[in-house]
């Protein structure tokens, strides 16, 4: 498999994943309008982490070599990579911190990683139970 094909697949997957992220973020933002806590990003992070654990295990992907096949390039690196975001998570933390809600910022900062680690592990366990 040539590199340009992989990059093209990741482009398509990342574009789709990013568009889904925007839709999910928008829906959650509209539904919980008054809340300053970034629920949308948290939901995206946790669900993306769960799916990464689930699909990586189902596809039997070596985590150190995720650019192994077209399917992993499209789905894992592309869709899930584009769907989840590290930059917005950090920016949300900074915004919470700057708006004076420092306790909430710390909770979000640490809680996102803890929830993500657990979600990815649960995804892997679910995959093993499935087959």
């Amino acid at each position, binding site marked *: 498999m040539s590199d340009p094909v*992989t*990059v*093209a697949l*990741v*482009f398509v997957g*990342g*574009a*789709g994943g*990013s*568009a889904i*992220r*925007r*839709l*999910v*973020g928008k829906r959650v*933002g509209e539904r919980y309008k008054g809340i*300053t*806590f970034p*629920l*949308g*990003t948290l939901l*995206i*992070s946790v669900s*993306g*982490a769960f*799916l*990464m*654990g689930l699909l990586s295990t189902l596809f039997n992907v070596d*985590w*150190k070599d*995720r*650019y192994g096949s077209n399917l992993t390039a499209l789905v*894992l*690196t*592309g869709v*899930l*990579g*584009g*769907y*989840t*975001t*590290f*930059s*917005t*998570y*950090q*920016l*949300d*933390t*900074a915004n*919470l*911190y*700057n*708006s004076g809600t420092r306790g909430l910022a710390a909770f979000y*900062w640490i809680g996102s*990683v803890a929830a993500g*680690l657990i*979600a*990815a*592990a649960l995804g892997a366990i679910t995959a093993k139970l499935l087959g």
Partner: protein
Amino acid sequence: MLKDGILVFIGGGIGAALRELLMLVVANLPGGFPMSIFIANMTAALLIGVLSSLTIPGGVIGSGGKVLLTTGTMGGLSTFSSFVWATDQMLANPAHRLLGAEHGCRFFACGVGPLARRPPVPDLSPCGNRLKRQSNRADDFLSINDRH
């Protein structure tokens, strides 16, 4: 709104492709520390902070550019799922447990670039008040649930 969706689609694709290029070029550290993902996430976290400061109303970049670059490209370049999955995998392997903890901590601690993005607004009246109002508008513009 559809325009924003298209901009995120294009920006996200570009960001993800850049991340893939980093993965192809940058090797993992011994023990599997995913240096490429680390670089992608740190770069995106820093740049989203810088870009958000440039995209306030009347700023250098308009609202379309903001959606394209922050929600799109920076969101596509950075990834949360690979980060936690790699940490899980390292923690699960006794030989790499220490490295996994270090990996988690390094990601965790280094992503705070955006914290320094907004300098304190000087309170010089009457100009100071105007600056302060602009700053408040910037906060409104960057309301948390508005942007992913």
